[in-house]
């Protein structure tokens, strides 16, 4: 795409002067300017009809965003109760098991590791998996979504499938030179905000007497 544009740009730049001379366009300079000016004025008029409120105020953004970061670390390091994150819970599974069984935990197959926090609980007969997902908290649907998160018990192998991805597309408009010439601070265009923060977390509760073999590549945290 960019190659195409580069070639196009070259063609235009090289070709235009010739075309200009050929068509004797240069004689109509002031007419061209007049026409162009009308177009510009028309677009200014059109601009006034754009509801500018819908472009978020730069002040509101950062506080909202910082609320959600360091999700896992808050649980691990600061002992934030899990209930605080109830709103991000997307799915849960339960697998009944007998005592003194052995399980392996497998996530895969494509190298997208969720964070898994495992907690051992006394007197419980089922493995409980909760899935929490944090996505950019913005009013936009992903333009592309593929695959689904599932957890299943395959003869003693607890498999977490995290195939697929979500694609978001954002646009921003930068003011840039010359509008920012007399502004002290940087131009706040959208990409400067940390909206990319996302995290997935599987919170697994297993009976205390169940053995669990964990794939060493996975980011697994034991809570106790």
């Amino acid at each position, binding site marked *: 795409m960019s190659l195409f544009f580069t070639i196009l740009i070259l063609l235009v730049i090289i070709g235009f002067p010739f075309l200009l001379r050929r068509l004797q366009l240069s004689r109509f300079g002031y007419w061209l300017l007049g026409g162009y000016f009308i177009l510009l004025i028309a677009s200014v008029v059109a601009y006034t009809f754009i509801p*500018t409120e819908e472009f978020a105020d730069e002040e509101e953004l950062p506080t909202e965003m910082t609320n959600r970061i360091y999700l896992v670390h808050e649980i691990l390091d600061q002992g934030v109760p899990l209930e605080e994150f109830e709103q991000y819970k997307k799915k849960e599974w339960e697998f009944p098991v007998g005592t003194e069984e052995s399980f392996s935990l497998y996530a895969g197959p494509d190298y997208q590791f969720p964070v898994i926090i495992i907690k051992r609980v006394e007197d419980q007969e089922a493995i409980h998996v909760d899935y929490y997902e944090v996505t950019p908290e*913005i009013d936009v649907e992903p333009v592309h979504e593929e695959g689904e998160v599932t957890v299943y018990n395959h003869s003693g192998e607890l498999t977490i499938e995290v195939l697929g991805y979500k694609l*978001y597309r954002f646009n921003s*408009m930068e003011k840039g*030179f010359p509008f920012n010439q007399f502004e002290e601070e940087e131009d706040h*265009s959208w990409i400067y905000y940390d909206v*990319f923060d996302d995290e997935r977390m599987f919170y697994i509760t297993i009976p205390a007497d169940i053995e669990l073999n964990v794939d060493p590549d996975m980011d697994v945290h034991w809570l106790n």
Partner: protein
Amino acid sequence: MSLNKMDLSAAVKKQLNYKMKVYVGMISSLVIVQVIGIFFSVVSPLQGYSTMDYVEIEYMNYNTLNIITLTSLWALIHAIIMTTKNEWENAFPFVGNTLSNHLANMIFLVGASIVAGIVTILASFTVRVYLYYFTDELFFMSPGFVLNGGDLLAGTVTVILHFLLLCAIGYFLGTVTRLHRLLPVLLPIVVIGLLITINYINHDWMMNTVEFYYGETSMAVFLMKIVVTAGILFACSIAISSRTEVRK
């Protein structure tokens, strides 16, 4: 038949009128450069891509810098062209002298800078309007999309002064190169050389110079800096060629 009198202001007036006809091509190329600038502002945003685990984010940052860059080139190149031998001689079949010719050229360039500045600022509306109404692209959390009155004033003043500075630089360089026949070859080599080596050698003075003008945050001081600089460059151009003979 009695003798006619012609004072400088009358000569400049007539010359200016003549320049406006002669340099009509400069006006059409301004329009074309602007349209190309708008086109590229719309089709080639700065693209970014980031992926974190399962979330992929594509972001496109639109700006109107293409218009400014192309129009800057236009200003620079046309100011240089004005000083070429050919254009210079074209101005002399009729009444005038070097000074009146210079002054007419400069007034024309000032006018052209103002026109170019105004259309450049208006074109940033055109880009926004096109993106908003004619594409599916969504804009939000993009405060840069909104232009307010203060932006407009500051932007217009800045960009006009910016084009004026480039015109003055181009005009000065063009006049200097006419001093010696080797200069038209040497000067571009020096300029391009500086631009190439900028990656390897730290041209502090260049950065400082750019910073001196474009790091200025007070509008009054910025205006003064540019106007004084352009004035000096124009005055030097006049001084350099005051003894120049025409129509060799």
